């Protein structure tokens, strides 16, 4: 490593560490919603990526509206957008559960297929409403640029924002699932649906709200990603495989598993990418995951569930 000072190498190391963290927060945010739904109902929601796109498009619409009608509010609209993304995606999820998913709980594979049909319809709706082109919301200034603790270190602000948002959402999910009455009911239903019903938990309602919550979080993820990438009708499909891998690798029904899994995958991929080409890094990461899953089929951190 000729020609580099230690402080330069240190800076690169720090920034590379942050790149890994940034990828981690992205993966986790994407996977949280899916993990909740998968853990609760054993259902894989193939339209998860499209619910993310709903969040992203919501942000785009709000940014356009704000720009046109209230330019002075531009610095603040993004927070509103996140809440709106959560609500709209959640509402759509609620409807999807009511119309589609609840009829298929006994057939998890069919749910996978039905949600794929749903994803097709959603993609085409995006195309009809917003056009085929990629769109990017105008971002508030405080989300652009980088934070420079020293001369040689640049930490992306949008990465920090996503990291912060992921932390908040994860804590929120933790609180909901493990510290609230509602979470108690959810966990009871997951562990023994029949008994939960017998002790008076409205399991249908629990399912519906869990699904809506999962989709709502997907919406938040979508809103957050507008700071990193663009949004198009088929954006959702780009993320879906990564998201699946995080959830499956982490093991169903385990919040900790999902977090650790996202962390492992993100660090592995980000470190590999530093040393080899991006394409091959992806291949190796996925391959390693598949191999590990062959030895630990239920995922790294599966909790024991009575089936």
């Amino acid at each position: 490593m000729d020609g580099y000072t230690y402080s330069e190498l240190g800076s690169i190391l720090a920034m590379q560490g942050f790149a890994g963290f940034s990828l981690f927060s992205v993966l986790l945010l994407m996977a949280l919603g899916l993990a909740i739904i998968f853990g609760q109902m054993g259902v894989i929601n193939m339209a998860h990526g499209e619910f993310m796109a709903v969040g992203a498009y919501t942000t785009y619409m709000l940014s356009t509206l704000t720009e046109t009608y209230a330019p002075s509010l531009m610095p603040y609209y993004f927070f509103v957008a996140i809440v709106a993304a959560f609500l709209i995606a959640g509402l759509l999820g609620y409807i999807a559960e009511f119309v589609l998913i609840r009829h298929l709980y006994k057939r998890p594979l069919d749910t996978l297929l039905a949600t794929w049909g749903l994803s097709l319809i959603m993609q085409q709706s995006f195309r009809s409403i917003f056009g085929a082109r990629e769109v990017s919301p105008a971002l508030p200034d405080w989300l652009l640029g980088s934070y420079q603790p020293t001369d040689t270190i640049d930490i992306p602000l949008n990465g920090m924002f996503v990291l912060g948002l992921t932390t908040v959402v994860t804590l929120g999910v933790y609180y909901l699932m493990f510290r609230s009455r509602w979470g108690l009911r959810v966990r009871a239903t997951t562990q023994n649906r029949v008994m939960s019903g017998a002790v008076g938990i409205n399991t249908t309602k629990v399912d519906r709200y869990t699904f809506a919550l999962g989709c709502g979080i997907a919406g938040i993820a979508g809103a957050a990603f507008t700071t990193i990438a663009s949004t198009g009708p088929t954006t959702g499909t780009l993320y879906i495989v990564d998201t699946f891998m995080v959830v499956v690798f982490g093991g169903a029904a385990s919040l900790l598993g999902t977090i650790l899994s996202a962390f492992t995958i993100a660090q592995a991929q980000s470190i590999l990418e530093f040393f080899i080409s991006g394409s091959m890094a992806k291949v190796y990461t996925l391959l390693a995951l598949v191999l590990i899953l062959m030895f630990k089929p239920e995922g790294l951190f599966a909790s024991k569930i009575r089936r």
Partner: protein
Amino acid sequence: MTFVYERLMGGKSGLSGFLILALFILIVLPLSLDLFRLNLVGKYLTYAFAAISLVLLWGYGGILSLGQGIFFGLGGYGMAMFLKLEASSPENTAIQSTPGIPDFMDWNQLTELPWFWVPFNSFTLTIIAILILPAAFAYLIGAAMFKRRVGGVYFAIITQVIAVILTVLIVGQQGFTGGINGITDLRTLNGWDITSNSAKYIFYFINCALLLTVIMASRFILTSKFGSLLLAIRDKEDRVRFSGYDVSNFKIFVFCFAALISAIGGAMFTLQVGFMSPSFVGIVPSIEMVIFAAVGGRMSLVGVVYGTLLINFGKTAFSESFPELWLFLMGGLFIAVVMFFPNGLAGIWKDYGHHLTNRLSGLRNWVQNSPAGATNKKMVDNT
């Protein structure tokens, strides 16, 4: 004779369905379509191989593979590699810096044919590779998964990830694989022009013959004891295991067989379409194959052929006039089939057929027929 009748054709109901299909693809379609459309049908029918493999795997075995494109692609690439080598004779590629190797290798500074391409100089070895490699690959995946009792959604997702890996690999290693453009510009098979009209007819009929053979072979497997066990595994895996059967071996076998069928489809695809590219390996084609099976009827070997044809014709026809409507329709159709008609076209036909029979058999039976009698027995006998 009984063997042929009962085991290969599937008895009375199966035979008529089989014969009607044979009549339809061997006589009706060639007589009523021009060569252009017939060639399209030929292409669609190669997808039907994959759809049939899903009947075995998913309909009967309860194993949903979202990665049949892997095997379809491997078969297709095998054939394409052979044809490409033939097209890259030193005379044809004289302008390259290294004549005699495929053009895309030359562009990527390869000066020598990679070792794994060498066997594809021989037609015999190519055929063997097409029949064995995909099945062997399926064995590896299957053994690793099923021995460890990975199933259901997990299996679906892992097959999907493998499809992604393979796609990224093919696209990334373009010096060896042709990259995203795939292997193109295939013209002759052992000196015979595969783009000529006569070749198109011949491939169409070979394709149909293979398809019908595959249906018979599948029927043979499904009507054997193996078939019953497969169903038993699908419905109550643990009970079969407790009865002393090694469930994983059955699953591995059916997965390998399904891979083989898909690979044959892939090879026929290359021959009829004239190129192969990574876009037939990835997630989307793999899921589309599942759609074909779902719409045709996941329990019906014959039904999925119609399902495949219907969807593809719909795609072609609609995308010519209402491309937007098509995706809505496709998504809606898919949801409807999954929710309301789990047995697809075959199921609908069966229901409708019963009503028809009832009506034809006269008012005498009308009164006696309870509604339950009119419904078909179970998903099982829809073949």
